[in-house]
């Protein structure tokens, strides 16, 4: 049963992250996702201090706000300060992450977070934190409820905003012409990324969230040219990564989140080499004309 809980939690994190990640990489904002996932740390710590426990609602709100603030700060420094965008990302997220780590040390006694947990999470502990009602009914792991709530939220967001997200991603000028605000959808997407990152934080930590945000969509991007198919492939990959990651970790007794990222990287490598449409091996064959073609 524990195995199932962990794999389910991993899949839900991977699917939520992957779906949003598709839009991030198509908008060339992969590193902004990376920055948000680091920068939510001080938000999580502050929410922790205010709520006094791992109350998920406060946590989601606090860190979600910090995530949107991060995006805002990155753009502010880039536009108003004329700081090049890569440096703007790098300066912002390292600063906020450092702040988060310092806050953890200062309030070490009050905040039940440690630095390792921040980096690679505690997905193995998912089955331990059970939601038990006052009459003793066991509803299963608490984390699963939070994660399914986030997953439903992400799927609803993409279903409802499919057209708007599609247009602002691929043709912002046309989107603006028919009255869709690119800025609004930009911040909605960033808000969604922030919430998802925070929810995933406890399970897989700040950095491995990035692997799940970027690797599955990048893999799917090498397999198809259709956004809908790309989203579906990403969902499939999320489940596969979770299952394989779990058993890899179990077989060598290591971090599950680490193993999941490793598997995600390996799957990308396979697509990079063997994708029928975009893999380097098949692309080479198309690029090099056969001797017959030359002689005729």
């Amino acid at each position, binding site marked *: 049963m524990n195995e199932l809980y962990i794999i389910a939690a991993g899949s839900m994190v991977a699917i939520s992250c992957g779906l949003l990640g598709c839009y991030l*990489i198509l908008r*060339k*904002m*992969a*590193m902004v996702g*990376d920055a948000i996932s*680091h920068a939510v740390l001080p938000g999580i710590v502050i929410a922790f201090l205010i709520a006094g426990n791992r109350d998920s609602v406060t946590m989601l709100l606090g860190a979600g706000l910090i995530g949107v603030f991060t995006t805002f700060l990155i753009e502010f*420094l880039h536009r108003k*300060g*004329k*700081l*090049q965008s*890569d*440096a703007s*990302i*790098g*300066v912002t997220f*390292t*600063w906020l*992450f*450092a*702040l988060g*780590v*310092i806050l953890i*040390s*200062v309030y*070490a006694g009050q905040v039940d977070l440690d*630095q*390792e947990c921040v*980096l*690679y999470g505690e997905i193995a502990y998912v089955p331990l934190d059970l939601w038990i009602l006052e009459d003793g009914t066991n509803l299963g792991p608490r984390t699963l409820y939070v994660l399914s709530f986030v997953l439903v939220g992400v799927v609803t967001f993409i279903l409802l905003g499919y057209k708007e997200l599609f247009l602002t991603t691929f043709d912002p000028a046309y989107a603006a012409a028919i009255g869709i605000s690119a800025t609004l959808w930009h911040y909605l997407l960033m808000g969604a990324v922030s919430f998802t990152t925070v929810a995933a934080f406890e399970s897989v930590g*700040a*950095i*491995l969230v*990035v*692997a799940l*945000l*970027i*690797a599955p969509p*990048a893999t799917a*991007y*090498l397999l198809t040219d259709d956004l809908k198919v790309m989203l579906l492939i990403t969902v499939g990959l999320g489940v596969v990564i979770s299952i394989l990651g779990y058993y*890899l*970790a179990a077989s*060598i*007794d*290591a*971090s599950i989140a*680490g*193993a*999941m*990222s*490793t598997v*995600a*990287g390996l799957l*990308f490598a396979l697509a*990079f080499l063997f994708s029928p449409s*975009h893999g*380097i091996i098949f*692309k080479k064959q198309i690029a090099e004309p056969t001797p017959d073609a030359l002689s005729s």
Partner: protein
Amino acid sequence: MNDLLQFLSFEDPNTRYVVTGTVLLAISSAIVGSFTFLKKKALVGDAVAHAVLPGVCLAFMLAGNKNPVYLVVGAFITGWLSLVIIDQIVARSRIKEDTAIGLILSTFFGLGIMLLTKIQHSGNAAQSGLDSFLFGKAAALVGTDVIVFSTISIILLVVVFIFFKELTLIAFDEDFAKSIGFPVRRLELVLTTLTVMAVVIGIQAVGVVLMAAMLITPAAAARFWTDQLKVMLLLAAIFGAFAGVFGAYVSYTAPAMPTGPWIVMIISIIAMFSFFFAPRKGILYKMVKQRRIQKKIRDENILKMFYQLGEVDGDFFSSRTSDILAERRELASGQLSSGLSRLKRHGYLKSEHGSWQLTIEGKNKGQRTIKLHRLWELYLTQYLHIAPDHVHDDAETIEHIITPELEAKLEKLLEYPDVDPHMSKIPYES
């Protein structure tokens, strides 16, 4: 205060090691980081920083101990490999660079975490302290570490010194470097290697996650104070070194505090201060300058309005009420009234019983703005053959910018014309 004096006296050998170590690390990463920053590849350092973790773990697994030389070699190999893979992914597939960086960064780091946790669970006693690579262990630097770091830092600085001209060229204008026959590929390899070297020693102080800050932040801060590369490198090194010393001081007075994050916090504060308050490039300076220009434009427009009203009824010095001025709807009422009182302060307007009239200076200034506007409209129609009904907006902007020298040139070029394309009279100073 005593703490500070004791700290600065360097009596404690441990303090000496920590300070020397962090300062060396900070300086070398600030200098290498400046070049990657100028090449707009700042985040590459972030990728390398994360990618060294599996190298460190593999080196430990193979060697079975924490000999810093093995660990550094292992880190160097995977760090370097990550950059090669990023390059290959970008060159050979349709994945964009930022996606490739994020992908390699996170999956290499994931692999590193997997190996690290495996080592930790293996029960090998020698492994304790290996996780200091995650957040750095500046406070625990010892003599041998400092020797290894100093050697690498010195090699690094010497290489930068030897290749200074070449690195400068590829940082600013790669195509030009290529065209005059520089071995650009090989020089990029040098820069890549330098980056990996800086990261490999830097992570021991601040850890993998925050290493990017040591490369990017000092360079970004320094860039706001100067346009000169040499000055920028010097400033970046000073900022980095200051943060390093301060971080070491924090860990000296409060041993429970993590040194790496404090170093990054200090350097980030320096950077934020630079972004906002640096002269000429700072955000605040630019905002003030922009406001000043906006006010100047608004004032000139108000004087222009007075002059135009004067043209209509033939009397430039008659009084106008604010209602008449507001009727023209050229400005919001708040802006109009603040502009009017500012112009009065500067002696361009006089006011009596709520109505306003031009002074001689005010009339001249309004007249000059009108003159420039009409001259420019004429120039656009005559020399650029733009239709007369398309020139107004352009002239509306340029009339505030044209200098007296340009004004003289325009007059001469157009041979002191009498009227503009709309047959309005061009006024000259009598």
